[in-house]
């Protein structure tokens, strides 16, 4: 098993830099570790190169694209019985108010904005949020109702370092479906139940020393089990 990583990992793992892998023709099951798997960025091309070589790879290009396009993330999650809230892809304030009501949380669906979100409690805040995330109404946004507490967790191979079974269970299911090893999940908790809202990259600075240890430990585990890549 080959580990390609843009992040400096702990332990004595055999890790290859993305640029070296991209110039190689190594045919081995591949785990691609990156804090940012965005389309067109190195993290994407590592998975693409592995797929072209015929390697099993985590994550796949399809899952990279789909997990970062919030409406598709939610659609596929819903199909897999992962809890989600209703959502709307639109550039219309009216439609959001009519169909979802307020307050809402908005995620961008455009080529330029890939992190963060905006919430709106009233109409004027919604107009402002639509204008900024839709880049002057040029693009649609993905709107979801705010029904409870909205927060973000880091997920490493579907494991998160918080003491909340509901959220940990959700993260594990999201990982089983999309297999993004390193990411941030935006989640809502409504009456004790956790709902998936979005999946986004983690800033490199946001990765703590203990995060790196967790990632390294998971990789070691996977390389010992070996069957992780065969699904």
């Amino acid at each position: 098993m080959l580990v390609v990583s843009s992040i400096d990992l702990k332990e004595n793992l055999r890790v290859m830099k993305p640029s070296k892998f991209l110039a190689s023709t190594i045919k081995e099951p591949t785990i691609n570790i990156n804090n940012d798997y965005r389309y067109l960025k190195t993290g994407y091309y590592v998975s693409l190169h592995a797929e072209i070589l015929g390697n099993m790879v985590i994550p796949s290009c399809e899952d990279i694209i789909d997990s970062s396009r919030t409406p598709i993330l939610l659609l596929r999650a819903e199909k897999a019985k992962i809890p989600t809230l209703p959502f709307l892809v639109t550039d219309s304030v009216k439609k959001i108010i009519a169909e979802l009501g307020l307050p809402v949380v908005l995620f961008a669906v455009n080529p330029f904005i890939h992190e963060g979100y905006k919430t709106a409690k009233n109409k004027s805040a919604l107009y402002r949020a639509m204008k900024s995330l839709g880049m002057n109404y040029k693009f649609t946004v993905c709107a979801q109702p705010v029904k409870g507490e909205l927060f973000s967790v880091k997920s490493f191979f579907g494991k998160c370092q918080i003491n909340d079974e509901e959220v940990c269970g959700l993260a594990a299911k999201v990982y089983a479906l999309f297999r993004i090893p390193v990411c941030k999940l935006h989640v809502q908790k409504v009456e004790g139940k956790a709902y998936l809202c979005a999946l986004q990259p983690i800033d490199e600075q946001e990765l703590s020393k203990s995060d790196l240890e967790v990632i390294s430990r998971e990789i070691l585990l996977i390389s010992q089990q070996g069957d992780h890549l065969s699904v």
Partner: protein
Amino acid sequence: MSKIACFVEKYNFSDPREEAALYNFKNAAEKAGHQFNFLFRENIAEIPKYNAVFIRATTDPLFTAYIVSKTAWELGLKVVDDPESIKICANKIHQYALFEKYNVPRIPTVFLSKDDLHHKQIKEIFDTLGKPAVIKAPYTSFSRYVEKAACETSFRDVTKRFFKKSDVLAIQKFTPTAFDWRVGVLNNDTLYVCKYMIPKGKWKHGAKLRGKPTVVWGRTVAVGKQKVPERLKEVALKACSVIGKGLYGVDLKEVDGDFVVVEVNDNPSIYAGYEDSKDKDIYQRIINYLSD
């Protein structure tokens, strides 16, 4: 009877020739007893009401069109362009890597990663491909992010701009011709053939005039699929076969009596009186495919 949604954006109606083509699709569908509605972004939520989705808005994994395509696909509808074709065709690195893997006749190409942009690498590229070399941003369409460079300074200048959005670029041997062949392909079969002429003194089908922001396009000359060399169609079909079974526009160049693929487009342009002028049945065939 099939219900077909045609996903469009406002700009699809800004050129009367494209607008006419869109209505030709609608007429062909209705004549065959199908329902055909234009679906705008306001009404994406209506996708589940349809049996098939035909995307005419510009496709890219980062555009709304991908959301439409993948949603339709997940719901089990027939969809052109399908998400896999969008993913491959929207990215030159992806399609060129497949051409290499499956031996599709192509223009000599190397990939350049952002981390490898240094003097030695640039020199090696020029030594392999000659000067000038053609630099392509993977997401280019309408000739927009295809430029050539004949020295290290301009090579660095172009790549620096293209690297802002993509961490890998494609570099090719400069292979100028008087026109590009355009072969329309549907479901592994030739649909139409045209020549996309290159404007005089230029080297791209869509070329900028000196000092002006507007793009001039070379003429489109429909040839008719019966009247072209078999080998042209064979190479075009081979290129599509490594991508999928949808609707494609293959750009090829004739070099030393043989044909090489420049690129395969999903979502190919179809303008009334242009691509359709020798092969009149293209609307009907696409509708049949969607409603099958």
